[in-house]
């Protein structure tokens, strides 16, 4: 096979997610009362970027054939934390941002340590740590409130040169400094290998434990970046259980739409980002078509159900029935 064919096979999920997003966004902006303007793009970008960060976080863990059901709670916790710390003078704000990101790293590292070195199942372990993170968030913000450095917030949620949404650029920067180095590093490849076949990776002497640990830790960091941006958009911190859970759920939907295999070892964060943007756009389609907002949860649920069922088409290619049981 030629090189480009390998590339196509590898990136098929990402390209598909990109295609879905373009089509959905075209429908969305064509039917939006204001049309395709910088304002519409900026609003859509700001909403989409939040989910994109959380979806990136989920991708890192899913690649290792794990799952992180606490990403939404890390997102909520860091939101509450940022509403206390990211205030005041320039220097204070910088320290606040660093503290928030550090918290995310610690949360992710705790998850990683429990799952990898404690050898617990990721599902149960991250549901439990999620409860702890939510408890901490509630401790910080029993009632919604707080504030944020508004100059920084407005800068990062505004537009560059009047057209390019700053949040999209921030997303691009994060992809370049977190995802690209990770996926090209030895430990990043180890994370992929561990997700693909842990036994084979172990036998080949791949550092699977360190790779998986790094993936969980960076997932915490990315969720924290999402939490930081949530604070920039809302100017407040809120320990909302339902919203944290919804972000966890949507992150899984975005990952699936983005072509990342839930069995691990396949897919990329870029795909998950487009999956997240597509998922958000689909959810917002209801508004431009003047549906009752009450229908939105049902609509998003049905999309999620359809998205996860699409994987079942692979069953038609199965020749031997025993391959049903992995």
């Amino acid at each position, binding site marked *: 096979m030629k090189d480009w064919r390998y590339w196509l096979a590898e990136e098929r999920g990402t390209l598909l997610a990109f295609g879905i997003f373009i089509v959905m966004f075209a429908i969305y902006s064509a039917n939006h009362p204001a049309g395709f303007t910088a304002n519409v793009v900026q609003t859509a970008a700001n909403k989409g970027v939040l989910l994109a960060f959380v979806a990136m976080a989920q991708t890192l863990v899913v690649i290792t054939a794990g799952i992180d059901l606490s990403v939404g709670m890390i997102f909520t916790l860091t939101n509450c934390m940022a509403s206390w710390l990211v205030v005041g003078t320039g220097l204070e704000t910088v320290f606040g941002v660093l503290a928030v990101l550090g918290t995310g790293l610690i949360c992710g590292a705790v998850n990683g340590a429990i799952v990898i070195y404690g050898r617990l199942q990721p599902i*149960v372990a991250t*549901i439990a740590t999620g409860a702890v993170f939510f408890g901490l968030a509630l401790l910080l913000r029993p009632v919604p409130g707080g504030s944020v450095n508004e100059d920084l917030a407005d800068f990062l949620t505004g537009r560059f040169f009047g057209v390019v949404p700053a949040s999209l650029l921030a997303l691009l920067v994060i992809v370049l400094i977190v995802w690209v180095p990770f996926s090209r590093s030895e430990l990043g490849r180890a994370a992929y290998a561990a997700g693909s076949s842990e036994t084979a990776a172990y036998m080949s002497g791949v550092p699977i434990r360190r790779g998986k640990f790094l993936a969980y830790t960076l997932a915490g960091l990315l969720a924290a970046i999402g939490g930081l941006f949530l604070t920039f958009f809302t100017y407040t911190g809120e320990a909302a259980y339902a919203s944290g859970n919804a972000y966890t759920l949507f992150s899984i939907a975005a990952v699936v739409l983005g072509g990342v295999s839930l069995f691990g070892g396949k897919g990329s964060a870029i795909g998950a980002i487009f999956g997240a943007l597509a998922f958000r756009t689909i959810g917002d389609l209801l508004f431009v078509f003047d549906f009752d907002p009450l*229908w939105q949860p049902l609509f998003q649920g049905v999309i999620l159900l359809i998205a996860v069922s699409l994987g079942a088409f692979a069953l038609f290619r199965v020749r031997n029935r025993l391959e049903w049981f992995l």
Partner: protein
Amino acid sequence: MSETTLGGIMGGIAGRMPKFIRRADPAVLTAFACIIILLLLGSLYSRSFLSPEYLLQQLKVASFLGVIATGMMLVILLGQIDLSVPWSVAAGAMMACAAAAYGPVGVALAIPFGVLCGVAIGIVNGIGVAYLRIPSMIITLATNAVAQGLMVVYTGGFSPQDSATAAMRYLATGFTIPGVPNAVIIWALIGAAMVFALTRTSFGRAVYGIGNRERAAYLSGIDTRRIVMIAFAVSGGLSAFGGVLLAGYASKAAQSMGDAYLLPSIAAVVLGGTSILGGRGSYLGTVAGVILITLLQSILSVMQMPEAGRQIIYGVVIVAMLLLYGRAPASR
């Protein structure tokens, strides 16, 4: 490492104990030991902790979780998980209350209708897992979202105004046998039925078989897909029945009333020694897990711990206990 030392200590102690204890699962013994420790700690804090009224009250509260955890256990024994519990519970409660608004026929059919809604959610889960081979964690999250969406559309986003029927209230709060709450009797009946199904029927053997290795179960002639489907339907039905009881207890249904039951039901099953990978576990362990979780919650609320502290302690305790005896074998 802690497994082996713990097992060694347990084995040493168990050698000098009656046969029925020696044969028991160390995880179940640990869970019961933790219950006794919790009771002792509680009695240090407040005298009334060991009074029969208080313990019976705890058992009544535990029975709601017990009913839900029974279904969860069946699914976990298969090596799957059911994350659609929150809105199966809420849907069961809301639909039962909704049916009650449609005259005498509705009142009579309220409970079966609520349970049937849960079974329907469970069947969708079952089809997804058994026939479409979607990972259970994912498909149950998706059906949970769909059930939530349906309920939000139905209720308009508020808590529904319909109230529970007299029968639902009687089941949850009444007394048929003096001194023993009905909810406890229901849990005992459901538990007995589950023990019978798991240990005395071919269905139960098939569940353990699939949990150990689905391929092997399939090759030995078990219709594994049908069994998985039935297990999910039962789990959905029991979650909804738990919701019906909860609605009877509070005399009405509420939005997100099921959220507080997802983690506890999984934790109860896993703390009771059932392997999260499937194929291993006993109902006695689940009973111990349910009582353990309920006591823990109760002690935290008696100590007037705020919600934040409760969540933290709760998560820490579950992780700590799992690290004690729920670890997977080291990869070699």
